[in-house]
Protein backbone atom coordinates (compact mmCIF):
# COMPACT_ATOMS: atom_id res chain seq x y z
CA UNK A 1 0.00 0.00 0.00
CA UNK A 2 1.09 3.58 -0.55
CA UNK A 3 2.86 5.31 2.27
CA UNK A 4 0.73 7.86 4.10
CA UNK A 5 1.97 11.39 4.51
CA UNK A 6 4.55 11.71 7.24
CA UNK A 7 3.12 15.17 7.84
CA UNK A 8 0.55 15.17 10.61
CA UNK A 9 -2.54 17.23 10.02
CA UNK A 10 -3.75 19.51 12.76
CA UNK A 11 -6.74 18.71 14.97
CA UNK A 12 -9.88 20.82 15.24
CA UNK A 13 -10.73 23.48 16.10
CA UNK A 14 -8.46 24.84 13.42
CA UNK A 15 -6.88 28.28 13.49
CA UNK A 16 -7.93 30.41 10.53
CA UNK A 17 -6.27 32.99 8.33
CA UNK A 18 -7.83 35.70 6.21
CA UNK A 19 -7.45 35.99 2.42
CA UNK A 20 -4.51 33.61 1.95
CA UNK A 21 -5.15 33.40 -1.80
CA UNK A 22 -5.35 37.15 -2.36
CA UNK A 23 -2.08 37.76 -0.58
CA UNK A 24 -0.36 34.92 -2.41
CA UNK A 25 -1.56 36.11 -5.84
CA UNK A 26 -0.18 39.57 -5.17
CA UNK A 27 3.14 38.07 -4.04
CA UNK A 28 3.33 36.02 -7.23
CA UNK A 29 2.36 38.94 -9.49
CA UNK A 30 5.04 41.13 -7.97
CA UNK A 31 7.54 38.57 -9.29
CA UNK A 32 5.82 37.74 -12.56
CA UNK A 33 4.85 40.67 -14.73
CA UNK A 34 2.83 38.54 -17.18
CA UNK A 35 0.10 38.05 -14.59
CA UNK A 36 -3.10 40.06 -14.96
CA UNK A 37 -5.95 40.14 -12.46
CA UNK A 38 -9.51 40.26 -13.81
CA UNK A 39 -12.53 40.99 -11.67
CA UNK A 40 -16.23 40.49 -12.36
CA UNK A 41 -17.44 42.94 -9.69
CA UNK A 42 -16.72 40.90 -6.56
CA UNK A 43 -13.28 42.32 -5.97
CA UNK A 44 -13.10 42.38 -2.19
CA UNK A 45 -15.08 39.15 -1.91
CA UNK A 46 -12.54 37.45 -4.16
CA UNK A 47 -9.61 38.80 -2.12
CA UNK A 48 -8.20 40.79 -5.06
CA UNK A 49 -8.69 44.24 -3.55
CA UNK A 50 -5.10 43.71 -2.44
CA UNK A 51 -4.00 43.29 -6.06
CA UNK A 52 -6.14 46.21 -7.28
CA UNK A 53 -4.64 48.59 -4.74
CA UNK A 54 -1.03 47.52 -5.27
CA UNK A 55 -0.88 46.78 -9.00
CA UNK A 56 -3.70 48.82 -10.56
CA UNK A 57 -2.07 48.83 -14.02
CA UNK A 58 -2.47 45.05 -14.18
CA UNK A 59 -5.95 44.95 -12.70
CA UNK A 60 -8.77 44.77 -15.24
CA UNK A 61 -12.36 45.29 -14.13
CA UNK A 62 -14.55 43.55 -16.68
CA UNK A 63 -17.73 44.72 -15.03
CA UNK A 64 -20.58 42.42 -14.09
CA UNK A 65 -20.28 40.69 -17.44
CA UNK A 66 -18.95 37.17 -17.08
CA UNK A 67 -19.41 36.12 -20.71
CA UNK A 68 -17.42 39.11 -21.91
CA UNK A 69 -14.84 38.64 -19.16
CA UNK A 70 -14.03 35.10 -20.34
CA UNK A 71 -13.68 36.23 -23.97
CA UNK A 72 -11.49 39.09 -22.86
CA UNK A 73 -9.34 36.75 -20.77
CA UNK A 74 -8.92 34.39 -23.72
CA UNK A 75 -7.66 37.18 -25.99
CA UNK A 76 -5.32 38.49 -23.28
CA UNK A 77 -3.88 34.99 -22.83
CA UNK A 78 -3.53 34.66 -26.60
CA UNK A 79 -1.50 37.89 -26.49
CA UNK A 80 0.94 36.43 -23.97
CA UNK A 81 -0.52 37.60 -20.68
CA UNK A 82 -1.51 35.22 -17.91
CA UNK A 83 -4.99 36.26 -16.75
CA UNK A 84 -6.35 35.18 -13.36
CA UNK A 85 -10.13 35.63 -13.57
CA UNK A 86 -12.17 36.08 -10.40
CA UNK A 87 -15.81 35.86 -9.44
CA UNK A 88 -18.03 33.51 -7.48
CA UNK A 89 -17.77 29.94 -8.73
CA UNK A 90 -21.38 29.79 -9.80
CA UNK A 91 -21.03 32.87 -12.02
CA UNK A 92 -17.63 31.73 -13.26
CA UNK A 93 -18.97 28.49 -14.70
CA UNK A 94 -22.71 28.37 -15.41
CA UNK A 95 -23.26 31.68 -17.20
CA UNK A 96 -20.10 31.85 -19.35
CA UNK A 97 -19.80 28.13 -20.09
CA UNK A 98 -19.87 28.56 -23.86
CA UNK A 99 -17.30 31.35 -23.68
CA UNK A 100 -14.97 29.25 -21.53
CA UNK A 101 -15.38 26.34 -23.95
CA UNK A 102 -14.73 28.32 -27.12
CA UNK A 103 -12.48 31.21 -26.08
CA UNK A 104 -10.37 29.45 -23.44
CA UNK A 105 -10.59 25.64 -23.32
CA UNK A 106 -10.63 24.87 -27.04
CA UNK A 107 -7.48 26.96 -27.72
CA UNK A 108 -6.00 25.56 -24.46
CA UNK A 109 -5.04 29.00 -23.22
CA UNK A 110 -3.40 29.62 -19.82
CA UNK A 111 -6.38 31.35 -18.26
CA UNK A 112 -6.85 30.72 -14.53
CA UNK A 113 -10.49 30.88 -13.44
CA UNK A 114 -10.89 31.30 -9.70
CA UNK A 115 -14.40 30.57 -8.45
CA UNK A 116 -15.16 31.53 -4.85
CA UNK A 117 -17.83 30.12 -2.51
CA UNK A 118 -17.99 26.45 -3.46
CA UNK A 119 -21.10 24.36 -2.94
CA UNK A 120 -23.31 25.33 -0.05
CA UNK A 121 -20.67 27.38 1.73
CA UNK A 122 -22.77 30.50 1.01
CA UNK A 123 -26.03 31.76 2.46
CA UNK A 124 -26.82 33.28 -0.94
CA UNK A 125 -29.29 30.62 -1.95
CA UNK A 126 -29.33 28.41 -5.06
CA UNK A 127 -28.38 31.30 -7.35
CA UNK A 128 -25.08 31.70 -5.50
CA UNK A 129 -24.25 28.05 -4.82
CA UNK A 130 -21.71 26.45 -7.12
CA UNK A 131 -22.91 22.88 -6.77
CA UNK A 132 -22.14 21.86 -10.36
CA UNK A 133 -19.00 23.87 -11.14
CA UNK A 134 -16.64 20.90 -10.86
CA UNK A 135 -18.87 18.82 -13.14
CA UNK A 136 -19.09 21.58 -15.72
CA UNK A 137 -15.38 22.35 -15.76
CA UNK A 138 -14.41 18.68 -15.65
CA UNK A 139 -16.37 18.09 -18.84
CA UNK A 140 -14.28 20.60 -20.81
CA UNK A 141 -11.37 19.04 -22.71
CA UNK A 142 -7.99 19.99 -21.27
CA UNK A 143 -9.35 21.80 -18.21
CA UNK A 144 -7.52 21.25 -14.91
CA UNK A 145 -9.88 21.34 -11.92
CA UNK A 146 -8.53 22.15 -8.45
CA UNK A 147 -10.34 22.12 -5.10
CA UNK A 148 -7.92 22.91 -2.27
CA UNK A 149 -8.60 22.09 1.36
CA UNK A 150 -7.09 24.73 3.59
CA UNK A 151 -5.14 27.96 3.96
CA UNK A 152 -1.76 26.29 3.46
CA UNK A 153 -2.89 25.08 0.05
CA UNK A 154 -4.78 28.29 -0.80
CA UNK A 155 -1.52 30.13 -0.16
CA UNK A 156 0.28 27.94 -2.72
CA UNK A 157 -2.37 27.41 -5.36
CA UNK A 158 -1.71 30.54 -7.45
CA UNK A 159 1.94 29.67 -7.89
CA UNK A 160 1.16 26.01 -8.56
CA UNK A 161 -1.37 26.68 -11.31
CA UNK A 162 0.77 29.39 -12.93
CA UNK A 163 2.92 26.59 -14.34
CA UNK A 164 0.05 24.68 -15.99
CA UNK A 165 0.24 25.14 -19.79
CA UNK A 166 -3.56 25.06 -20.32
CA UNK A 167 -6.64 26.43 -18.57
CA UNK A 168 -7.31 25.85 -14.87
CA UNK A 169 -10.41 26.16 -12.71
CA UNK A 170 -9.91 26.58 -8.96
CA UNK A 171 -12.70 26.66 -6.40
CA UNK A 172 -11.90 28.51 -3.20
CA UNK A 173 -13.70 29.05 0.07
CA UNK A 174 -14.14 32.70 0.97
CA UNK A 175 -13.08 34.64 4.03
CA UNK A 176 -11.48 32.95 7.00
CA UNK A 177 -9.80 29.75 5.88
CA UNK A 178 -8.86 26.96 8.29
CA UNK A 179 -5.26 25.84 8.61
CA UNK A 180 -5.35 22.06 8.50
CA UNK A 181 -1.98 21.12 7.04
CA UNK A 182 1.35 21.90 8.68
CA UNK A 183 3.40 24.69 7.16
CA UNK A 184 5.75 22.34 5.31
CA UNK A 185 2.92 20.77 3.29
CA UNK A 186 3.55 21.24 -0.43
CA UNK A 187 0.63 21.42 -2.82
CA UNK A 188 1.29 19.48 -5.99
CA UNK A 189 -1.11 19.18 -8.87
CA UNK A 190 -0.04 15.71 -9.97
CA UNK A 191 -1.00 13.71 -6.93
CA UNK A 192 -3.52 12.94 -4.24
CA UNK A 193 -2.46 12.76 -0.59
CA UNK A 194 -2.98 9.68 1.58
CA UNK A 195 -3.40 11.13 5.06
CA UNK A 196 -4.42 7.96 6.92
CA UNK A 197 -4.47 4.25 6.24
CA UNK A 198 -7.14 1.78 7.22
CA UNK A 199 -8.48 -1.29 5.44
CA UNK A 200 -12.20 -0.99 6.23
CA UNK A 201 -13.12 2.03 4.17
CA UNK A 202 -11.41 4.52 1.87
CA UNK A 203 -12.63 8.09 2.36
CA UNK A 204 -11.77 10.23 -0.65
CA UNK A 205 -12.45 13.94 -0.44
CA UNK A 206 -11.57 17.31 -1.90
CA UNK A 207 -11.79 20.95 -0.87
CA UNK A 208 -13.37 22.05 2.35
CA UNK A 209 -14.82 18.58 3.11
CA UNK A 210 -11.41 17.43 4.33
CA UNK A 211 -12.17 18.71 7.84
CA UNK A 212 -15.39 16.70 8.36
CA UNK A 213 -13.77 13.65 6.75
CA UNK A 214 -10.86 13.78 9.19
CA UNK A 215 -13.34 14.16 12.06
CA UNK A 216 -15.41 11.24 10.76
CA UNK A 217 -12.33 9.03 10.42
CA UNK A 218 -11.47 9.71 14.04
CA UNK A 219 -14.96 8.84 15.30
CA UNK A 220 -15.03 5.69 13.16
CA UNK A 221 -11.63 4.69 14.49
CA UNK A 222 -12.92 4.90 18.03
CA UNK A 223 -15.64 2.45 17.08
CA UNK A 224 -13.36 -0.03 15.39
CA UNK A 225 -13.64 1.08 11.78
CA UNK A 226 -10.23 1.67 10.19
CA UNK A 227 -10.43 4.34 7.49
CA UNK A 228 -8.01 5.45 4.84
CA UNK A 229 -8.25 9.17 4.13
CA UNK A 230 -7.27 10.54 0.74
CA UNK A 231 -7.22 14.26 0.02
CA UNK A 232 -7.71 14.90 -3.70
CA UNK A 233 -6.91 18.56 -4.44
CA UNK A 234 -6.98 18.00 -8.20
CA UNK A 235 -10.20 16.41 -9.43
CA UNK A 236 -8.98 16.55 -13.03
CA UNK A 237 -6.62 15.16 -14.09
CA UNK A 238 -7.32 12.70 -11.29
CA UNK A 239 -4.42 10.89 -9.64
CA UNK A 240 -5.91 7.55 -10.67
CA UNK A 241 -2.88 5.60 -9.54
CA UNK A 242 -3.35 6.62 -5.91
CA UNK A 243 -7.12 6.19 -6.12
CA UNK A 244 -6.71 2.66 -7.45
CA UNK A 245 -3.98 1.75 -4.98
CA UNK A 246 -5.94 2.89 -1.93
CA UNK A 247 -9.37 1.62 -2.92
CA UNK A 248 -8.06 -1.79 -3.95
CA UNK A 249 -6.87 -2.30 -0.35
CA UNK A 250 -10.18 -1.29 1.28
CA UNK A 251 -13.50 -3.11 1.67
CA UNK A 252 -15.60 -0.06 0.76
CA UNK A 253 -15.25 3.39 -0.72
CA UNK A 254 -16.93 6.66 0.25
CA UNK A 255 -16.39 9.93 -1.60
CA UNK A 256 -17.17 13.24 0.11
CA UNK A 257 -17.61 16.53 -1.74
CA UNK A 258 -19.23 19.91 -1.26
CA UNK A 259 -20.81 19.54 -4.70
CA UNK A 260 -23.51 17.61 -6.47
CA UNK A 261 -22.97 13.86 -6.49
CA UNK A 262 -23.37 14.13 -10.28
CA UNK A 263 -20.19 14.82 -12.19
CA UNK A 264 -17.74 15.75 -9.45
CA UNK A 265 -15.20 13.84 -7.36
CA UNK A 266 -17.62 10.98 -6.64
CA UNK A 267 -18.25 10.47 -10.33
CA UNK A 268 -14.54 10.70 -11.15
CA UNK A 269 -13.71 8.07 -8.52
CA UNK A 270 -16.59 5.83 -9.65
CA UNK A 271 -15.35 5.99 -13.24
CA UNK A 272 -11.83 5.11 -12.15
CA UNK A 273 -12.94 2.14 -10.04
CA UNK A 274 -15.23 0.81 -12.74
CA UNK A 275 -12.64 1.08 -15.49
CA UNK A 276 -10.01 -0.56 -13.27
CA UNK A 277 -12.38 -3.38 -12.35
CA UNK A 278 -12.11 -2.57 -8.64
CA UNK A 279 -15.48 -3.82 -7.43
CA UNK A 280 -16.07 -2.12 -4.10
CA UNK A 281 -19.31 -0.88 -2.58
CA UNK A 282 -19.37 2.88 -3.14
CA UNK A 283 -21.30 5.75 -1.56
CA UNK A 284 -21.06 9.34 -2.72
CA UNK A 285 -21.62 11.87 0.04
CA UNK A 286 -22.57 15.17 -1.54
CA UNK A 287 -25.54 17.24 -2.63
CA UNK A 288 -28.09 14.74 -3.82
CA UNK A 289 -29.36 16.22 -7.05
CA UNK A 290 -31.24 19.08 -5.41
CA UNK A 291 -30.93 22.85 -5.12
CA UNK A 292 -30.18 23.84 -1.54
CA UNK A 293 -32.68 26.22 0.04
CA UNK A 294 -33.31 27.86 3.37
CA UNK A 295 -30.03 29.29 4.51
CA UNK A 296 -28.66 31.80 6.93
CA UNK A 297 -25.31 30.13 7.37
CA UNK A 298 -23.21 27.40 5.83
CA UNK A 299 -23.34 25.22 8.94
CA UNK A 300 -27.12 24.87 8.65
CA UNK A 301 -26.86 23.93 4.98
CA UNK A 302 -24.02 21.47 5.51
CA UNK A 303 -26.13 19.70 8.09
CA UNK A 304 -29.42 19.87 6.15
CA UNK A 305 -27.93 18.61 2.90
CA UNK A 306 -25.88 15.78 4.34
CA UNK A 307 -22.40 17.28 4.29
CA UNK A 308 -21.68 16.97 8.00
CA UNK A 309 -19.27 14.74 9.88
CA UNK A 310 -22.33 12.74 10.94
CA UNK A 311 -23.34 12.22 7.30
CA UNK A 312 -19.96 10.70 6.56
CA UNK A 313 -20.04 8.46 9.61
CA UNK A 314 -23.60 7.35 8.78
CA UNK A 315 -22.70 6.56 5.19
CA UNK A 316 -19.72 4.43 6.22
CA UNK A 317 -21.68 2.68 8.95
CA UNK A 318 -24.49 1.74 6.57
CA UNK A 319 -22.15 0.77 3.77
CA UNK A 320 -20.17 -1.62 5.96
CA UNK A 321 -23.37 -3.10 7.40
CA UNK A 322 -22.34 -2.44 10.98
CA UNK A 323 -24.92 -3.44 13.57
CA UNK A 324 -26.73 -0.91 15.70
CA UNK A 325 -26.99 2.84 15.33
CA UNK A 326 -23.96 4.71 13.99
CA UNK A 327 -21.80 6.47 16.59
CA UNK A 328 -22.63 10.09 17.27
CA UNK A 329 -20.29 12.70 15.88
CA UNK A 330 -20.19 16.03 17.60
CA UNK A 331 -18.36 19.04 16.28
CA UNK A 332 -15.44 20.33 18.29
CA UNK A 333 -16.39 23.70 19.75
CA UNK A 334 -14.80 26.58 17.85
CA UNK A 335 -14.11 30.01 19.27
CA UNK A 336 -14.41 33.12 17.11
CA UNK A 337 -11.62 33.02 14.53
CA UNK A 338 -11.45 29.25 14.67
CA UNK A 339 -13.04 26.67 12.38
CA UNK A 340 -14.61 23.33 13.05
CA UNK A 341 -16.55 21.23 10.59
CA UNK A 342 -20.23 20.63 11.19
Amino acid sequence: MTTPETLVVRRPPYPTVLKPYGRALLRLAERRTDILCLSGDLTRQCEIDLFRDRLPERFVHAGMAEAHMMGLAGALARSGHQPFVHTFGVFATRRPYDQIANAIAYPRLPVRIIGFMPGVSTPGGPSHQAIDDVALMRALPGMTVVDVADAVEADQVAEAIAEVPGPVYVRLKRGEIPVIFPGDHRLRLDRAYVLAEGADVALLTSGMMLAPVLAAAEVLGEYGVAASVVHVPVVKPLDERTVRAVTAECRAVVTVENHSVVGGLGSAVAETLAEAGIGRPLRRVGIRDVFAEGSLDAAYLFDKYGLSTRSVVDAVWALLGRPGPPPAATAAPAAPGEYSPV
Partner: protein
Amino acid sequence: MTSMDPRRLATAIRLRAVQMVAPQGFGYLGQALSAAEQVAAVFTVLRFGVDRLVCSPGHYVIAPFAAAGELGLIDDDVLATYGRNGAVVEAIGTERSPVLDYTCGSLGQGLSAAAGFALSDRMRGRDGRVFALVSDGELQEGQVWEAAMFAGHHRLDRLTVLLDANNSQVDGPVDSITTIEPIADKWRAFGWHAVDLDGHDVAAVAEALDQAGRDTTRPSVLVCRTSTVHGLRCLPPDADGHFIKLPPELAEAAVAELTEELESLR
Protein backbone atom coordinates in the same frame (compact mmCIF):
# COMPACT_ATOMS: atom_id res chain seq x y z
CA MET B 1 -1.60 45.43 -46.62
CA THR B 2 -2.01 45.11 -50.37
CA SER B 3 -1.77 47.47 -53.29
CA MET B 4 -4.64 45.67 -55.00
CA ASP B 5 -7.62 47.80 -56.00
CA PRO B 6 -10.25 47.05 -53.31
CA ARG B 7 -13.03 46.97 -55.93
CA ARG B 8 -11.22 44.24 -57.78
CA LEU B 9 -10.49 42.41 -54.52
CA ALA B 10 -14.18 42.50 -53.57
CA THR B 11 -15.13 40.89 -56.89
CA ALA B 12 -12.32 38.36 -56.53
CA ILE B 13 -13.68 37.46 -53.06
CA ARG B 14 -17.10 36.77 -54.60
CA LEU B 15 -15.60 34.66 -57.38
CA ARG B 16 -13.44 32.62 -55.04
CA ALA B 17 -16.32 32.17 -52.60
CA VAL B 18 -18.47 30.78 -55.41
CA GLN B 19 -15.66 28.39 -56.32
CA MET B 20 -15.24 27.33 -52.68
CA VAL B 21 -18.93 26.60 -52.21
CA ALA B 22 -19.57 25.04 -55.64
CA PRO B 23 -18.21 21.52 -54.90
CA GLN B 24 -20.78 21.11 -52.09
CA GLY B 25 -23.56 22.83 -54.03
CA PHE B 26 -24.47 25.00 -51.05
CA GLY B 27 -22.82 27.01 -48.30
CA TYR B 28 -22.16 30.37 -46.70
CA LEU B 29 -21.88 32.27 -49.94
CA GLY B 30 -24.30 35.01 -48.87
CA GLN B 31 -21.89 36.01 -46.08
CA ALA B 32 -19.15 36.59 -48.66
CA LEU B 33 -21.49 38.47 -50.97
CA SER B 34 -22.58 40.88 -48.24
CA ALA B 35 -19.15 41.33 -46.61
CA ALA B 36 -16.95 41.38 -49.73
CA GLU B 37 -16.37 45.15 -49.78
CA GLN B 38 -15.77 45.30 -46.02
CA VAL B 39 -13.24 42.47 -46.16
CA ALA B 40 -11.57 43.94 -49.25
CA ALA B 41 -11.26 47.34 -47.57
CA VAL B 42 -9.79 45.82 -44.40
CA PHE B 43 -7.26 43.68 -46.26
CA THR B 44 -6.18 46.82 -48.10
CA VAL B 45 -5.06 48.48 -44.85
CA LEU B 46 -4.34 45.48 -42.60
CA ARG B 47 -0.69 45.25 -41.51
CA PHE B 48 -0.03 41.58 -40.75
CA GLY B 49 1.93 41.09 -37.54
CA VAL B 50 0.93 44.55 -36.32
CA ASP B 51 -2.82 44.84 -36.70
CA ARG B 52 -5.30 42.13 -35.80
CA LEU B 53 -8.28 40.73 -37.58
CA VAL B 54 -11.23 39.20 -35.76
CA CYS B 55 -14.05 37.49 -37.65
CA SER B 56 -16.68 37.22 -34.95
CA PRO B 57 -19.26 35.17 -36.87
CA GLY B 58 -17.43 31.96 -37.79
CA HIS B 59 -19.79 31.47 -40.74
CA TYR B 60 -18.15 34.47 -42.43
CA VAL B 61 -14.64 33.00 -42.63
CA ILE B 62 -15.24 32.20 -46.28
CA ALA B 63 -14.78 35.91 -47.08
CA PRO B 64 -11.39 36.48 -45.40
CA PHE B 65 -10.24 33.06 -46.66
CA ALA B 66 -11.17 34.08 -50.21
CA ALA B 67 -9.36 37.41 -49.82
CA ALA B 68 -6.30 35.68 -48.37
CA GLY B 69 -6.35 33.22 -51.27
CA GLU B 70 -6.46 36.04 -53.78
CA LEU B 71 -3.51 37.76 -52.06
CA GLY B 72 -1.44 34.58 -51.88
CA LEU B 73 -1.68 34.29 -48.09
CA ILE B 74 -3.42 30.91 -48.35
CA ASP B 75 -2.34 28.45 -51.04
CA ASP B 76 -4.89 27.58 -53.70
CA ASP B 77 -4.66 23.87 -52.90
CA VAL B 78 -5.49 24.59 -49.24
CA LEU B 79 -8.38 26.84 -50.20
CA ALA B 80 -9.68 24.09 -52.51
CA THR B 81 -10.27 21.91 -49.42
CA TYR B 82 -12.66 24.47 -47.89
CA GLY B 83 -15.47 22.74 -46.03
CA ARG B 84 -14.29 19.22 -46.87
CA ASN B 85 -13.51 16.36 -44.50
CA GLY B 86 -10.09 16.84 -42.92
CA ALA B 87 -9.78 20.45 -44.10
CA VAL B 88 -7.91 23.05 -42.07
CA VAL B 89 -10.20 25.67 -43.63
CA GLU B 90 -13.52 24.53 -42.19
CA ALA B 91 -16.75 26.16 -43.31
CA ILE B 92 -17.33 27.59 -39.84
CA GLY B 93 -14.16 29.07 -38.37
CA THR B 94 -12.06 27.08 -35.89
CA GLU B 95 -8.85 27.54 -33.94
CA ARG B 96 -6.98 26.23 -36.99
CA SER B 97 -8.41 28.87 -39.29
CA PRO B 98 -5.47 30.67 -40.95
CA VAL B 99 -5.01 34.45 -41.30
CA LEU B 100 -7.52 35.35 -38.57
CA ASP B 101 -6.52 36.24 -35.03
CA TYR B 102 -9.86 35.09 -33.69
CA THR B 103 -13.08 33.60 -34.94
CA CYS B 104 -15.85 31.57 -33.35
CA GLY B 105 -18.82 29.67 -34.66
CA SER B 106 -20.73 30.34 -31.45
CA LEU B 107 -21.96 33.81 -32.30
CA GLY B 108 -21.51 37.03 -30.41
CA GLN B 109 -18.09 36.29 -28.92
CA GLY B 110 -15.69 38.10 -31.23
CA LEU B 111 -16.01 41.62 -29.90
CA SER B 112 -14.81 40.54 -26.44
CA ALA B 113 -11.72 39.02 -28.04
CA ALA B 114 -11.16 42.15 -30.12
CA ALA B 115 -11.41 44.26 -26.97
CA GLY B 116 -8.89 41.95 -25.30
CA PHE B 117 -6.44 42.41 -28.15
CA ALA B 118 -6.86 46.19 -28.07
CA LEU B 119 -6.42 46.25 -24.29
CA SER B 120 -3.29 44.11 -24.52
CA ASP B 121 -1.81 46.40 -27.18
CA ARG B 122 -2.49 49.42 -25.03
CA MET B 123 -0.88 47.81 -21.96
CA ARG B 124 2.18 46.96 -24.01
CA GLY B 125 2.37 50.30 -25.79
CA ARG B 126 1.83 48.66 -29.18
CA ASP B 127 0.29 50.64 -31.98
CA GLY B 128 -1.71 47.93 -33.76
CA ARG B 129 -5.26 48.42 -34.92
CA VAL B 130 -7.86 45.75 -34.24
CA PHE B 131 -10.49 45.13 -36.92
CA ALA B 132 -13.53 43.09 -35.99
CA LEU B 133 -16.09 41.80 -38.44
CA VAL B 134 -19.41 41.52 -36.62
CA SER B 135 -22.82 40.66 -38.07
CA ASP B 136 -26.11 42.38 -37.32
CA GLY B 137 -27.73 39.13 -36.20
CA GLU B 138 -25.07 38.92 -33.50
CA LEU B 139 -26.48 42.08 -31.94
CA GLN B 140 -29.17 39.82 -30.48
CA GLU B 141 -26.47 38.26 -28.27
CA GLY B 142 -26.01 40.07 -24.97
CA GLN B 143 -22.26 39.54 -24.92
CA VAL B 144 -21.83 41.94 -27.85
CA TRP B 145 -23.24 44.73 -25.70
CA GLU B 146 -21.16 43.70 -22.68
CA ALA B 147 -18.10 44.06 -24.88
CA ALA B 148 -19.34 47.29 -26.51
CA MET B 149 -19.85 48.82 -23.06
CA PHE B 150 -16.37 47.73 -21.97
CA ALA B 151 -14.66 49.06 -25.11
CA GLY B 152 -16.55 52.35 -24.90
CA HIS B 153 -15.71 52.79 -21.21
CA HIS B 154 -12.04 52.08 -21.79
CA ARG B 155 -11.96 54.22 -24.93
CA LEU B 156 -10.29 51.49 -26.96
CA ASP B 157 -9.74 53.81 -29.90
CA ARG B 158 -7.64 51.36 -31.91
CA LEU B 159 -10.65 49.06 -32.21
CA THR B 160 -12.84 49.28 -35.31
CA VAL B 161 -15.94 47.15 -35.88
CA LEU B 162 -17.22 46.48 -39.38
CA LEU B 163 -20.84 45.63 -38.72
CA ASP B 164 -22.34 43.74 -41.62
CA ALA B 165 -25.95 44.92 -41.51
CA ASN B 166 -27.38 42.55 -44.11
CA ASN B 167 -30.66 42.01 -42.26
CA SER B 168 -30.23 38.25 -42.52
CA GLN B 169 -30.29 35.44 -40.00
CA VAL B 170 -31.21 31.78 -40.19
CA ASP B 171 -34.93 32.24 -39.59
CA GLY B 172 -35.30 35.19 -41.94
CA PRO B 173 -34.83 38.95 -41.97
CA VAL B 174 -33.38 40.20 -38.68
CA ASP B 175 -36.00 42.96 -38.47
CA SER B 176 -38.81 40.40 -38.69
CA ILE B 177 -37.50 38.73 -35.53
CA THR B 178 -36.24 41.59 -33.35
CA THR B 179 -35.94 45.33 -33.85
CA ILE B 180 -32.26 46.16 -33.69
CA GLU B 181 -32.60 49.68 -35.10
CA PRO B 182 -31.42 52.29 -34.59
CA ILE B 183 -28.11 50.44 -34.79
CA ALA B 184 -25.71 53.38 -35.03
CA ASP B 185 -27.44 55.26 -32.23
CA LYS B 186 -27.12 52.25 -29.96
CA TRP B 187 -23.35 52.20 -30.45
CA ARG B 188 -23.13 55.97 -30.03
CA ALA B 189 -24.96 55.60 -26.74
CA PHE B 190 -22.23 53.17 -25.68
CA GLY B 191 -19.54 55.75 -26.38
CA TRP B 192 -18.55 54.72 -29.89
CA HIS B 193 -17.90 56.71 -33.04
CA ALA B 194 -20.55 55.31 -35.39
CA VAL B 195 -21.19 55.84 -39.11
CA ASP B 196 -23.97 54.40 -41.21
CA LEU B 197 -23.01 53.73 -44.81
CA ASP B 198 -23.57 51.71 -47.98
CA GLY B 199 -21.52 48.62 -47.29
CA HIS B 200 -21.17 47.83 -50.98
CA ASP B 201 -19.55 51.20 -51.72
CA VAL B 202 -15.97 50.10 -51.21
CA ALA B 203 -14.59 53.62 -51.43
CA ALA B 204 -16.97 54.73 -48.68
CA VAL B 205 -15.97 51.77 -46.49
CA ALA B 206 -12.27 52.54 -47.06
CA GLU B 207 -12.81 56.21 -46.22
CA ALA B 208 -14.72 55.32 -43.06
CA LEU B 209 -11.95 52.93 -42.00
CA ASP B 210 -9.43 55.70 -42.47
CA GLN B 211 -11.51 58.12 -40.40
CA ALA B 212 -11.92 55.51 -37.67
CA GLY B 213 -8.16 55.11 -37.52
CA ARG B 214 -7.77 58.82 -36.93
CA ASP B 215 -10.24 58.95 -34.01
CA THR B 216 -7.98 58.77 -30.97
CA THR B 217 -10.72 59.14 -28.38
CA ARG B 218 -13.08 56.18 -28.81
CA PRO B 219 -13.69 52.93 -30.67
CA SER B 220 -15.46 53.07 -34.02
CA VAL B 221 -18.19 51.08 -35.71
CA LEU B 222 -19.03 51.12 -39.41
CA VAL B 223 -22.65 50.10 -39.84
CA CYS B 224 -22.42 48.68 -43.34
CA ARG B 225 -25.78 48.34 -45.07
CA THR B 226 -25.52 45.30 -47.29
CA SER B 227 -27.38 42.47 -49.00
CA THR B 228 -26.56 38.75 -48.97
CA VAL B 229 -27.22 38.50 -52.70
CA HIS B 230 -25.31 41.60 -53.79
CA GLY B 231 -22.97 41.45 -56.77
CA LEU B 232 -24.25 38.20 -58.23
CA ARG B 233 -27.06 38.87 -60.70
CA CYS B 234 -27.57 35.26 -61.69
CA LEU B 235 -28.92 34.23 -58.26
CA PRO B 236 -32.65 33.51 -58.21
CA PRO B 237 -34.71 36.24 -56.48
CA ASP B 238 -35.79 33.87 -53.70
CA ALA B 239 -32.24 32.74 -52.77
CA ASP B 240 -31.79 32.15 -49.00
CA GLY B 241 -28.87 34.44 -48.25
CA HIS B 242 -27.84 32.67 -45.05
CA PHE B 243 -27.19 29.38 -46.82
CA ILE B 244 -27.22 29.70 -50.59
CA LYS B 245 -27.93 26.70 -52.80
CA LEU B 246 -25.57 26.59 -55.76
CA PRO B 247 -26.29 23.67 -58.09
CA PRO B 248 -23.69 23.04 -60.86
CA GLU B 249 -25.38 25.04 -63.64
CA LEU B 250 -25.89 28.05 -61.33
CA ALA B 251 -22.30 27.79 -60.11
CA GLU B 252 -21.13 27.79 -63.71
CA ALA B 253 -23.17 30.89 -64.50
CA ALA B 254 -21.87 32.60 -61.35
CA VAL B 255 -18.24 31.88 -62.22
CA ALA B 256 -18.78 33.21 -65.75
CA GLU B 257 -20.50 36.38 -64.49
CA LEU B 258 -17.85 37.16 -61.87
CA THR B 259 -14.94 36.31 -64.17
CA GLU B 260 -16.30 38.76 -66.71
CA GLU B 261 -16.80 41.34 -63.98
CA LEU B 262 -13.23 40.88 -62.81
CA GLU B 263 -11.92 41.28 -66.37
CA SER B 264 -13.84 44.52 -66.76
CA LEU B 265 -12.06 45.92 -63.67
CA ARG B 266 -8.57 45.42 -65.08
